[in-house]
């Protein structure tokens, strides 16, 4: 996996496209405009990188650790001057992370800011190695599903197609299915884990990042049982849509387009199947630092950026194709982040938590009701 991008021009019947290999090993056919957008983002990323090196030079290699810790603990330690400074720095760190973590530092910053490092330390030494010993040679409903999916997780990617790639992906997923039997394995975790491996470049770190995501960051039960958590998040997004983009909410209602048709993949695959990889990584930078709220921001930003075109669509099919196509081509990651974090107004976590609490029983009732009907009528 090289971090430099190489490209050559190819003639694609109607328009020139450029084959580009991104820093994660994925190949893209970019139009001229997309190539320019991407280039500008790369230039800004290099500027951004300088700021990180400057911090590292003056404050030391783990300079963000203290700030993160202070941010996570808030003012719990009292109103000492040191705490105040650390929290103030924490908010500047938040801004820096929103502008993108340099690719070279991504793995270690994620490891700290997500809490995965802490989780690993608390589990004690040898936890993962022991888990691997436990699962060796075992076959379960989850391992069978994992074996179905490993070779069809981003096929065509050079490393994921390799024996090493497939072996590590399988091992992390199987180990996790053992750690968390309530979730086991859910399709989509394969895509998320593949990306974690590509960034963390360590099987064990990818495992802990996955555990942190599912256990601490994302809303509970998003991947388990009947995906009830994902249903709750979809309804919360629906409420937000009504507030933030009311015209689009009206259109979806009019066309009879369920929001789940658009956003299931966003909540489960965390955009890795929807957006270009380099754009997804910018989102994950913030997701690991700020939490699941980020998914709502990005979802609404994608809808807002395409609102004018979406409003012209006349059918569910047309709307879905337009949105999927536009999303797949969101190469201007800076623009997406700008809309997500500066143009959607305030996003209090308190009201999201309140919405989740309100929607949860409704989702459970709906799922129960369906089960009951299914069983009653068929008996």
């Amino acid at each position, binding site marked *: 996996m090289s971090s430099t991008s190489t490209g050559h021009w190819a003639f694609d019947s109607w328009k020139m496209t450029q084959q580009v290999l991104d820093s994660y090993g994925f190949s893209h056919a970019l139009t001229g405009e997309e190539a320019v957008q991407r280039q500008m983002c790369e230039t800004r990323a290099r500027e951004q990188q300088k700021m990180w090196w400057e911090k590292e030079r003056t404050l030391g290699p783990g300079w963000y650790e203290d700030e993160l810790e202070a941010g996570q603990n808030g003012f719990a330690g009292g109103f000492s001057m040191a705490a105040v400074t650390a929290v103030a720095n924490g908010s500047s760190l938040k801004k820096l992370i929103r502008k993108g973590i340099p690719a070279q530092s991504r793995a270690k910053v994620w490891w700290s800011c997500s809490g995965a490092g802490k989780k690993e330390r608390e589990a004690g030494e040898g936890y993962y190695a022991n888990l691997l010993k436990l699962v060796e040679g075992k076959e379960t409903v989850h391992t069978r*599903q994992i074996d*179905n*999916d490993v*070779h*069809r*997780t*981003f*096929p*065509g990617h050079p490393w994921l197609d390799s024996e090493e790639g497939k072996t590590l992906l399988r091992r992390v997923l199987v180990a996790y299915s053992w750690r968390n039997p309530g979730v086991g394995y*859910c*399709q*989509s975790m*394969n*895509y998320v884990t593949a990306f974690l491996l590509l960034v963390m470049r360590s099987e064990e770190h990818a495992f802990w990042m996955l555990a942190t995501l599912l256990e601490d960051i994302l809303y509970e039960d998003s*991947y*388990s*049982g*009947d*995906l*009830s958590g994902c*249903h709750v998040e979809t309804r919360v997004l629906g409420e937000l849509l009504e507030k933030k983009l009311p015209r689009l909410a009206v259109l979806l209602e*009019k*066309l*009879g*387009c*369920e929001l*789940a*048709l658009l956003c*299931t*993949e966003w909540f*489960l*695959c965390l955009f890795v*199947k*929807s957006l270009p990889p380099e754009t997804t990584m910018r989102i994950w930078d913030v997701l690991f630092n700020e939490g699941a709220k980020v998914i709502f921001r990005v979802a609404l930003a994608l809808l807002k950026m395409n609102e004018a075109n979406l409003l012209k669509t*006349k*059918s*569910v*099919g*047309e709307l*879905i194709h337009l949105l*999927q196509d536009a999303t797949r081509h969101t190469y201007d990651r800076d623009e997406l982040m700008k809309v997500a974090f500066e143009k959607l107004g305030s996003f209090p976590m308190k009201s999201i938590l309140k919405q989740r609490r309100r929607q949860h029983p409704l989702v459970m009732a709906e*799922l129960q009701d*369906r089960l009951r*009907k*299914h069983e009653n*009528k*068929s008996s």
Partner: protein
Amino acid sequence: MRAASPAANLKVVLLGEGRVGKTSLLLRFAKDEFSDTQQATIQASFLSKKVLVDAETSVALSIWDTAGQERFHSLGPIYYRDADAALLVYDVTDKDSFDRVKSWVKELKKMAGRNIVLAIAGNKIDLDRQEELDLTEQTEYAESIGASHFTTSAKLNKGIDAVFQDLAKRALVSKRRAAAAAEAVESTLVPRRQGTLIIDERPKAPPKRSCCS
């Protein structure tokens, strides 16, 4: 001569266990593409294709592909709601995958519209090493629920056009029958309420679908 516009837009939903080849069937049918390593489907998506049901009549099919893993079952209603037809896919080399077909049929019979047309496809016949494939149980089951049964291979492009043609033909009949029945009800209700007899013999245009053009 201009091609006649489709007689109807029909919505078809693909259902079945993971990895039986739903996406591959669809891609072969709609785009004549095939890949041995098809990505696992998470977010359902759809493709459209026009099908000739006889010399003069064509219908436009919007075919929805879905995720196969059991826990995605809870998303099913979003896809089969309003569907005119469902294609239930299993893998002929994996007998367990047929259980999933039965479970979907059970659900569709209870929860989807009464008029939904069903077909069952035993896919991956290219992988079966037996000389004679014994699918008596599967075909008998299909018959018992009023579904047609086909064997297919997305890889070799076998049997696929036949499945969709059959679905299109039967779904069109079912849709027209339902429309005629609705019209009959309407014509008995309208005069009574208004006191005047309105006879409208123009054939009703198929109701415009609100989704999946």
